[in-house]
């Protein structure tokens, strides 16, 4: 871990988000280790107990000590370290008579694929970047789905159905660049079955009591199939929602906002309400148009790349005027959300605290 990496842990919230993402990704593996090594113990209970103990450690560290927080995150996102800690917890719980079985965990640990446990600073940094990206996307999806359930209408949102379509399309073997209207009937049928399967699995996860609509949609999908137009629309809507969310709650928000669903909600609320404010509708349209031009570079961090701004109507005048319109809209929104240092398109002196600040995705 580099010094800059350690410094990047600003809050307990970020540390918790990273460790939680690691645990979710490794949950099955950890449960499997307990199941094989300690048959008398409840593997879920043990893995969850270890996670709670880790959170206790995170909470015990002062917010003024980012160095200690960073070290803790590195330690508790290491597969080998967590396996050993889990093994020790199992031994403590089961008693010393199980020590021979406990050794089985260490043996399996040695059999983990090489490269799973990052050792050198660059690997650690890349490993944490991956966790951050996953957590940010997860938080964005959670927020957009919640907004879809609560408000729909004009607010930025997606539906579970649209997300299921995206997952099914990307999980299928067909090239994702292929136009949905070119799908064969057989491909459509396979996508429909995949979408139905996901809806059913979710319904079971939630104790068969979540979103009654899911069951109806699933039945309708099985009966009627998914139309090619619905697939095109789902890909477009989810892509657009993610793009604008990354821009509003990432690029134009304080660091680490994308890791926190409540923060994403707050920024999207302000953005959605722009249209009802005087002059807000114009800013809203400018921000929507600028969102796909967001890029990350070493020099400028993550922000709108002026050369990529597209103006099909040519009614906003030359590019410099268009960039100024984007900057004005970004400034307006930043004032509404109370963000002092958004990554503005101009990287202006007033807004810029760290020129190369890159967001999570």
């Amino acid at each position, binding site marked *: 871990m*580099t010094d*800059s*990496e350690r410094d*990047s842990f600003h809050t307990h*919230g970020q540390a*918790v988000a990273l460790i*939680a993402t690691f645990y*979710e990704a490794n*949950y099955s593996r950890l449960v499997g280790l307990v199941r094989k090594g300690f048959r008398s113990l409840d593997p879920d209970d043990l893995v*969850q107990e270890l*996670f*709670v103990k880790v*959170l206790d450690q995170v909470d015990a560290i002062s917010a003024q000590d980012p160095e200690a927080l960073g070290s803790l995150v590195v330690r508790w996102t290491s597969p080998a370290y967590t396996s050993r800690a889990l093994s020790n917890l199992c031994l403590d719980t089961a008693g010393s008579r199980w020590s021979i079985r406990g050794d089985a965990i260490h043996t399996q640990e040695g059999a983990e694929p090489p490269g799973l446990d990052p050792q050198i600073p660059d690997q650690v*940094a890349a490993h944490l*970047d991956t966790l951050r990206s*996953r957590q940010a*996307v*997860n938080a*964005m*999806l*959670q*927020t957009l*789905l*919640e907004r879809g359930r*609560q408000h729909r209408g004009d607010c930025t949102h997606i539906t579970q159905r649209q*997300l299921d379509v*995206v*997952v099914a*399309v*990307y*999980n299928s073997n067909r090239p*994702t*660049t292929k136009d949905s209207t070119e799908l064969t009937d057989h491909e459509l049928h396979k996508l429909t079955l995949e979408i139905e399967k*996901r809806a059913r699995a*979710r319904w079971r*996860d*939630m*104790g068969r*009591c*979540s979103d009654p609509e899911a069951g109806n949609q699933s039945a309708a999908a099985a009966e009627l199939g998914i139309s090619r137009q619905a697939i095109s629309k789902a*890909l477009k809507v*989810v*892509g*657009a929602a*993610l*793009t604008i969310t*990354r821009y509003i709650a990432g690029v134009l928000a304080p660091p680490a906002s994308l890791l926190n*669903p*409540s923060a994403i*909600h707050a920024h999207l609320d302000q953005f959605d309400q722009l249209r009802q404010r005087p002059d807000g509708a114009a800013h809203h349209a400018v921000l929507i148009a600028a969102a*796909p031009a*967001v*890029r*990350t570079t*070493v020099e400028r961090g*993550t922000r709108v790349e002026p050369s990529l701004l597209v103006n099909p109507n040519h009614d906003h005048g030359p590019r410099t005027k268009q960039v100024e319109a984007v900057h004005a809209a970004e400034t307006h929104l930043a004032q509404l959300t109370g963000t002092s240092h958004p990554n503005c398109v101009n990287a202006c002196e007033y807004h810029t605290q760290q020129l*190369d*600040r*890159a967001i999570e*995705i």
Partner: protein
Amino acid sequence: MTPQQPPRTTSDPDLLALAATVAADHSPGLHHPIDLIVAARYGFTSDQAHSVLDAPHLLSWLTRYWHNHPPTEAIIQIAQPVDARGKAHRELLQRTGAIINVRSRSQHTLAASTAGLPEILTDDHSAEAGTVVVRRIFHDQGVMDLAIESAYIEASDTFPVIALLTLGEEESPVTRLLFLLIPAGPGVPAVSHAESRVHTDSAFSWDELLLYRTPIEASDLTGTNLAAVSHSVAAAKLPWKDAWRRAALATPDGHPLRDAVINGLSAQA
């Protein structure tokens, strides 16, 4: 993020592909126990809270979790405001037994006819929460005794405080009185108890009182709870005034609890 990292393309297809991968591994929301633990500790979104309230198996999980790991200060703070998220968290706390509703309502007209005898309101939650709240209202004297008994909270080495709050129709809950528990005497089923005497106040006769089952250590009191210390010390009966004094003396010099307790000891209830 390291400055040496090469620029990444972040066009829609990349974002969509990453979203599809993440969502395929794990449905966003409360589908994973790790999500539940994080939310139970640091707060649910409004949508998540309602999902738990609507799903008996999730509510049952949360009840068990908060029984083993009492709600954190973060959860208590989120539950205070009157916004949708705060209300949803209060409901979670109530439905999981972390908050006790003190529901008995004063029958003032009836009690007034029995001069000299107190009207006794008892809320017995000993079965599910190990807590009993007794209010004795002396209508003719204009005073009320409040007693809290707990079968679970050990007060031998620490200074556990539990808070009594009033709940208005459209207002945030307000901490009215704090009870510093001390060990109960022999022959009493309760492990710890506390008693206070206050002037009769309609707020304390309502059926809209909340009691946090989870104690807070006296030295950890903050915000509105800390602001209620002086009044609570003044209202406490003699043995509990002494306990407050000991709690204050156990804190380092300059600790805000000290001033609050001193103010309470020198004030009239």
